[in-house]
């Protein structure tokens, strides 16, 4: 070890430059492209921590709103594998950036979780109303 220490003293350090990017195929942030999504909610169902949540529109239409929390995501990639439409969910090769306190990643998510439950109820009611309307119209 004496020799090793001396040798190191005169050789360049092994320290990496700051900000070296991760290697190819790193499992980073999940990106969502709404155009191709068919709202099958498979991604929400498979996600272990529940980092993907859909909230429902109040008017009962099928266009759900996608929410993703990079501070809850465990970057397992299950959602990407589960998605039936390739290209809707893509896993980027860079990690998500750190957030500061004013972004409130946790508190906001509690609200979204609550919202998802509430909006689903409202949405179901709206759907029911729509169906009843339709039935009425048919009669």
């Amino acid at each position, binding site marked *: *070890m*004496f020799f090793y220490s001396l040798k190191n*003293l005169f*050789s360049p*350090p*092994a320290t990496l430059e700051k900000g070296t990017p991760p290697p190819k195929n790193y499992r980073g942030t999940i990106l969502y492209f709404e155009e191709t999504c068919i709202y099958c909610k498979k991604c929400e169902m498979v996600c272990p921590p529940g980092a993907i949540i859909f909230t429902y529109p109040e008017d009962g239409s099928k266009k759900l709103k996608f929410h993703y929390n990079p501070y809850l995501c465990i970057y397992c990639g299950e959602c990407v594998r589960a998605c039936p439409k390739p290209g809707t969910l893509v896993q980027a090769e860079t990690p998500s950036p750190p957030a500061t306190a004013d972004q409130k990643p946790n508190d906001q998510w509690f609200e979204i979780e609550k919202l998802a439950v509430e909006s689903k109820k409202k949405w179901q009611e709206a759907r029911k109303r729509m169906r009843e309307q339709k039935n009425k119209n048919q009669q």
Partner: protein
Amino acid sequence: MKTLLLVLAILAPLLGGIIYGLERKVKARMQNRMGPPILQPFYDFFKLADKRPLQVHSFHTLMGIAFFLAAWFAVFSLMVGPNLLVAIFLHVLALLFITAGGFSVKSPYSVMGALRELTHILAAEPILVFAVVGLYLASGSWNVIDILHSEPPPLLKMPLVFAVLLLTLPILLKKSPFDISEAHQEIIGGWEIEYSGIYYEAVYTAKWLEYVFVYFIIFLFGGANYLLGLGLVLLAFLFVALIDNSTTRLTIHHMVKFSLGVLLPLAAFNVFWVALWGH
């Protein structure tokens, strides 16, 4: 000469900080990494001054500050003061202060560190005394100025004492393998654990003063040949860094055995040899 030494003693904390910074850099490079900037200790110094201080109780704090002051006085009496022995005495006193501080709080790590520090004193100070006695025998005076004018350099008369002093450095400066009283991974710094903010600063800088104190004694072995003195200091510095980086921490028993069983007899042998037959 005298004024130069006075200035040096006043600037001792600064000097110590630079030595500490250099040491951290060299250590990092020996570990194959970049390491902090050399002025890092001073950044730490200013940062600590900016923290909100927490006090355990006033005696504890007082002991920390007393440690710093006594260490500084030790440096003064070494560089300008009358007598080398006084310097050693003050140095021991400084360590005793911090030990008392360590004992005065309830934290078990602190008490344990203080207990171990006592053993450190026991192991290292006798050798320091021998080193000073060696210097006295070589130059015929207890005074620094005389030692700094002595020809030939004391090193030639006291090679064994110098070698022993070199080997004691890890104990004195609390470096691996004998960093037992601090032992970051066991007792998280030992007696310094309960200090914080500006009070920790006193302890932190007092340690820099120890560097100056110890390296100046080494410098004295160069006698009138200042270049030789500087060379010795550089050698000692590198030696300590190398040892620190190439050994594990040993236990307190190893330390006492090594110091009192090997180092002390060697130093004593050299000193008595010179005292009895040297002239």
